[in-house]
């Protein structure tokens, strides 16, 4: 963990016009799962400004190696080998050290290891599909995996998800809790996907698109993609917690 004194201020308001709306009918499942009444807006309380912290002690040696952490028949996962790396930052462009990053994804043929999964593409006996890592003092993380395949999903008659990796991130306060997805530079299916299109601003979609990073590849071994995640920023504390009206 970092030696930096923990911050205790409230978080910046979430920009609801930048975030995808709850109700987005092109993504049909949102129709019955979206709250329709106004959210109750209010400042952070201690329950949002604090949050659980996960020590590096929970992380096993292969937790960030999805190619080798599920050796079903003793081998490595099939697929194009990639490093995914980046930093967890906040809206002030400061690193978020000690952030828990959990990832999950389909295998190289676009199939998830899950009992509700019905796609005919085969499972890879050596690919479980999950990993996790805790950011270092600079907010940096990296993991080794295979590039997931695209896959069809029952929404429109012929909708396909672009290749993606799911990210779940814990920052320092529960208000920062975020789940998102990482897409791959140059994938034309990004712009056809209703889930992606729920993001109102094209710059937001670009923000979720990892860049091919040739400087971080390992020659003759694996390609690399760089993906930074930005969590809500935090106010400084001197003017926090005043009585209303002061």
């Amino acid at each position, binding site marked *: 963990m970092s030696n930096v004194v923990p911050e205790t201020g409230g978080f910046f308001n979430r920009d609801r016009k930048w975030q995808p709306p709850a109700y987005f009918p092109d993504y049909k499942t949102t129709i019955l799962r979206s709250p329709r009444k106004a959210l109750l807006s209010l400042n952070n309380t201690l329950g949002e400004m604090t949050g659980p912290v996960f020590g590096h002690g929970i992380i096993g040696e292969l937790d960030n190696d999805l190619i080798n952490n599920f050796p079903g028949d003793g081998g490595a996962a099939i697929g194009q080998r990639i490093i995914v790396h980046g930093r967890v930052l906040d809206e002030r462009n400061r690193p978020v050290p000690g952030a828990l990053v959990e990832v999950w994804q389909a295998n190289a043929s676009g199939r998830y290891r899950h009992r509700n999964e019905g796609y005919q593409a085969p499972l890879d006996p050596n690919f479980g599909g999950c990993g996790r890592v805790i950011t270092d003092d600079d907010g940096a993380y990296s993991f080794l995996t295979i590039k997931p395949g695209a896959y069809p999903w029952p929404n429109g008659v012929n909708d396909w998800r672009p290749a993606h990796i799911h990210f779940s991130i814990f920052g320092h306060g529960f208000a920062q809790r975020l*789940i998102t*997805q990482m897409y791959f530079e140059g994938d034309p299916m990004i712009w056809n996907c209703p889930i992606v299109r729920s993001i109102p601003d094209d710059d937001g979609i670009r*923000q979720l698109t990892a860049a091919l990073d040739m400087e971080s590849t390992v020659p003759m071994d694996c390609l690399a993609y760089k993906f930074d995640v930005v969590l809500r920023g935090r106010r400084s504390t001197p003017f926090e917690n005043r009585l209303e009206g002061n």
Partner: protein
Amino acid sequence: MAQRLGYLKESPSQTAGPYVHIGCTPNFCGIEGIFPVDLGASMVNDKTRGERITVTGRIFDGFDAPLRDALVEIWQADCNGLYNSPSETRGSADPNFTGWGRSPTDLESGVYAFETIKPGRVPFYDGRLQAPHITFWIVARGINIGLHTRMYFGDEAAANAEDPLLARVEHKVRVPTLIAPREGDTYTFDIRLQGENETIFLDI
């Protein structure tokens, strides 16, 4: 033109999708051997202080069907109202209580459940005491951005009546959507995403 402030934008949220278990509770969905346990499966141990309770319920969609592929996370203070977090400056929380739990909804019944303790009272940002409560965060397929809400306790009527957050609810008829009735040691907190009794969700 003026100088740029230089702030970044928060990464847009995307749905957790139908297979959130693979990443967040892999052992629950049969992916064993990668992580020894699912994080958040246990919040208490033998030494945890406070009254032991069970918090359980289901999440209903706009057609009153329970979500069977959701993930629920909770975050709460210990029995003295302190959070087990580096950002907690008021004192040291019970080291035997994590304060954080994670439960998938059952793949058949849609029931989530937490074995926890009843939290103490925590001050609001203006110093007034809040009623005991548990913060909830819900993600699932079809939920584009995680939903924040709170559970209050049905047997805390006096505290609930003076709670500053509940006081901010304009339509008082909606307040009961945040209050879980108690039966024995179990509080049942059902969450409704839509409809007449839509749960109050927070932009916080």
